[in-house]
């Protein structure tokens, strides 16, 4: 008999990437809304939980190839976030308020050495401990930025949280680059490439950020003060920067961060309008966090659990030390320093990438260390947004209806 319903696809139908993406978005949205309504938790935590549920270790709906397909969304989301973070880096403020500069640098340095000491105590080799310490120094730009937006937070703790995050991300990358020569030498490579490689990675990224900033200022001047046009311009340049950074093998995150920092501090005739994330950006952020959740690996907790707990505790203490020491001097009100320390708890999801790169270089110690850092990252990915939300609310800096 002739098949009259030939136009109906065979069962099961081949689901394309659009279906996948749509499912991620719906799942993330529902997860975010659920945790927000049921437990008053940040929506980000819900996105991450949805990702964990979709991920390879649970339902298995999201697997490696999907990450590659969604790459452009992740790049754009991170691009917007890193740019905005760099844009909040106000050099004039640090010049006016020297104690603030001391506190910001102290926070990075204190955090680095606290983790380093903790890992040395757990008898990790010095170089690996230092690498992990550098990775742990960075606060998650995506989490602090999105919690700020979700809660419509504004105030001293919020502003300083964003500033300190910009500083500790930059510090983390510089520290990692400083360690690169040693990593190279351990692998008995030529000392010249050992020195040139980090210079190229950082210098190239900064140069790219600088050139992108000049291009944006020139084009923005020509386009005029129209928010819609300037937003498209920014997105276009972010995509270009990410693509060029990859093509040139320089650090993407540093290129974006310096792009934002230059844009804030070199815009002498104020050609740029303040950036506002719209609904469209919200979409990117849902995808970003769902996929981050899917990439988390909780299995390592079984072996690295105790060490991860130590990692998290010393990391927090390291951050809190400098902030508590210099907070009042830098003009923070009583109680603000403690809340700022808590707000900075989220750990950068970039840690996962950085650690995987290191593991590739040092299979021997790498796996062991990766278990510690990845466990800590997984735990903090869930606890971090909650900590930040708590701190900003307790500081009284969030919108009453947010």
């Amino acid at each position: 008999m002739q098949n009259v319903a030939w136009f109906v696809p065979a069962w099961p139908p081949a689901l394309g990437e659009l279906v996948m993406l749509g499912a991620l978005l719906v799942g993330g949205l529902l997860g975010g809304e659920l945790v927000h309504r049921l437990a008053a938790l940040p929506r980000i935590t819900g996105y991450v939980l949805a990702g964990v549920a979709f991920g390879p270790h649970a339902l298995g709906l999201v697997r490696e190839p999907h990450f590659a397909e969604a790459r452009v969304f992740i790049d754009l989301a991170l691009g917007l976030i890193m740019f905005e973070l760099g844009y909040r880096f106000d050099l004039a403020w640090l010049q006016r308020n020297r104690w603030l500069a001391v506190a910001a640098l102290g926070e990075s340095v204190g955090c680095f050495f606290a983790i380093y000491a903790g890992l040395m105590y757990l008898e990790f080799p010095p170089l690996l401990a230092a690498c992990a310490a550098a990775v742990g120094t960075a606060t998650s730009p995506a989490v602090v930025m999105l919690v700020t937006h979700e809660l419509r937070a504004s105030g001293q703790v919020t502003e300083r949280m964003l500033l300190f995050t910009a500083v500790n991300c930059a510090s983390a990358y510089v520290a990692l680059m400083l360690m690169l020569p040693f990593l190279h030498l351990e692998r008995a490579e030529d000392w010249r490439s050992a020195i040139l490689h980090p210079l190229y990675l950082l210098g190239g990224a900064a140069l790219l950020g600088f050139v992108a900033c000049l291009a944006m200022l020139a084009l923005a001047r020509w386009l005029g003060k129209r928010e819609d046009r300037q937003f498209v311009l920014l997105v276009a340049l972010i995509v270009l920067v990410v693509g060029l950074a990859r093509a040139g093998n320089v650090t993407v995150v540093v290129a974006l961060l310096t792009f934002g920092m230059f844009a804030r501090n070199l815009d002498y005739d104020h050609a740029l309008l303040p950036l506002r994330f719209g609904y469209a950006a919200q979409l990117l952020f849902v995808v970003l966090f769902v996929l981050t959740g899917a990439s988390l690996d909780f299995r390592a907790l079984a072996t690295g659990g105790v060490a991860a707990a130590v990692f998290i505790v010393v990391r927090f203490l390291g951050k809190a030390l400098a902030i508590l020491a210099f907070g009042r001097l830098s003009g923070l009100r009583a109680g603000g320093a403690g809340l700022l320390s808590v707000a900075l708890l989220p750990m950068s999801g970039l840690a996962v990438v950085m650690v995987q790169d290191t593991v590739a270089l040092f299979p021997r110690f790498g796996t062991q260390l990766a278990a510690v850092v990845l466990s800590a990252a997984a735990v903090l990915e869930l606890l971090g947004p909650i900590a930040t939300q708590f701190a900003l609310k307790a500081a009284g800096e969030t919108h009453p209806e947010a």
Partner: protein
Amino acid sequence: MEFPRSQGLTLGIELELQLVRAHDHDLAHEAGDLIERLAKKKVPGAVKPEVTLSMIELNSSIQGGFAGALAELEAQRDAVLDAAGVLNLRICGGGAHPFHKWAERRVFPDERFRRVTERYGYLAKQFTVFGQHIHIGCPDGDQAVYLVHMLTRYIPHFIALSAASPFSQGEDTSFQSSRLTAVSAFPLSGHMPFVGDWAEFAEYFDTMRGFGIVESMKDFYWDIRPKPEYGTIEIRVCDTPLTVRRAALLAAYAQALAAQLLEERPHAPTPAIYQVNAYNRFEACRFGYRGKFVDPFERRTKGIGADILDAVAGAMPQARRLGSAEAIAELAGDVRRGYSEADWLRARFNERGSLSDVVRDAAEEWAALRQ
């Protein structure tokens, strides 16, 4: 209610100021941090919270004239700028923030302001507008009542000279001063009733208090009100100017006018003052110096700018005695060349193309010429 005997014609100034964020020039919510910081410093006068966390109020001490008032305002401005710099806040004059959204405002955590919000609803947050209040010391209550009536004729002058709120909620309002519209929404705004003397006023006040409508003079949001607590009358129609200098100039003008009125007693108050007031007041808010002015005594119409020039000339002898002749001449010069801060703000917008830039320029204007 007693009106204390006080030295006549002293000056006092209150200025409500905008706290602005550095990165996008929207209003900040950091009045609490700033006031806490300033509490540790030696600042002349007083710095106080206002209804929302986006504003602070500077209060001067009792001043004899223009020079002293200006010096104190400058010292206050510098102290506030220092503290604000540590917190990365900008300070801005102007009667309204050009593009803030009133629904974003947060009420200062304080019992009095919470009550205001509970009572007035959205009006409380919409009241995030920024005015200058000028106090003039009065020898006694009867003279205070006389001054309130007679200065009402000059309300359009103070509106036009101070107008600095052409933008509101992201739009050009076409007004020179849009701020007073926010005040008019309150049930106890408007003007003092037409009473003959202090005894009659005290009776009116007791009646209103008897009804439970008011508790203190603070509850009347009149354009000009007697302030027996200080022994002054208080002119409340001015937008906060973009510079402290202009704030001192306006105070000097009020002082010279009051001196002339009390000395010369040119007219007896008549209800006509209040019959033309709403019209004159609107003309001043909408058109500034270019607005029309109906003179309640001479019963004719002229331009507000022309009336200011006549009034400055009339008060010049008193201004000379008070040491503010140059000050009020400076205001007259602005009227002659048609300069107003509302127009300045509009010009900044036309040149820059965004309201965020207008706020940045206004903040730079506020900080300019600091010592």
